[in-house]
């Protein structure tokens, strides 16, 4: 039962993705690019920076980067919490209190 539901879901999603890929506009001809053209023309004058991707990353869309750095920080906190160490004497104390 579970397996048949999984197969049906897989086929439906595959059909939708394939249909979307066929209906996409041609590769290499994006539709709306006013914002990106503004970035390309404005970056050098305003930030004195040659790498436009860095300028978008750290200035125009800096809040995205802030969220990303926070996600990395919290992921490292999660890894350190999951894989933490418990010292032997602490563990004996915990067993004694139980």
């Amino acid at each position, binding site marked *: 039962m579970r397996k048949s539901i999984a197969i049906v879901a897989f086929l439906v999603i595959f059909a939708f993705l394939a249909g979307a890929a066929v209906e996409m506009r041609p590769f290499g001809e994006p539709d709306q690019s006013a914002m990106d053209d503004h970035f390309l023309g404005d970056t*050098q004058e305003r930030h*004195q920076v040659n790498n436009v991707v*860095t300028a978008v990353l750290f*200035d125009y869309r800096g*809040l995205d980067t802030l969220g990303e750095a926070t996600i*990395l920080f919290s992921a490292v906190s999660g890894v*350190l919490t999951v*894989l933490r160490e*418990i010292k032997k004497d602490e563990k004996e104390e915990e067993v004694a209190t139980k």
Partner: protein
Amino acid sequence: MKYEMSRVVRTVTDILVVPIIIFGIYLIIHGHLTPGGGFQGGAVIASSTALLVIAYGSFGKHKKDLSSLESLGLTLFILLALIGMGSTMFYNYISGTGGLFGGTLPSLGINPGYINTGGTITLMNLMVGLEVSAALSLIIWMMSKRSGMMEPEETISPSEEVEK
């Protein structure tokens, strides 16, 4: 000795770690001129940690230092962003003012670029590089420790505690 690899691997590691770290620093400080930046350079620096861990099987007791570096990088990043709050967050208040990081490009359009331009973008590259290198080093260190690739200390994991 069980966790160390052979003398050949250790010697090559000793030779290669310094160029890897220098290449990472190059990627970080040229992040506003060439392909690269804080994230990529930080990942390259963290790969030297992976090399050390695999070759030697130990990394010393630098967990506190790495945690401090990571927190320092994130805090300085947020601080740099907040100083510009006079107009908007992440406002580039150093660019074009002259002095360190405040230089101007030789010309608009295609140009070779100078390294002391960019203002907060260059500084934020440095901060993010600090954070990412420390964070990925911590992840590699903890995971190789817990999966038995490094010599264990006198500790046990929480799950073993549950078993007993």
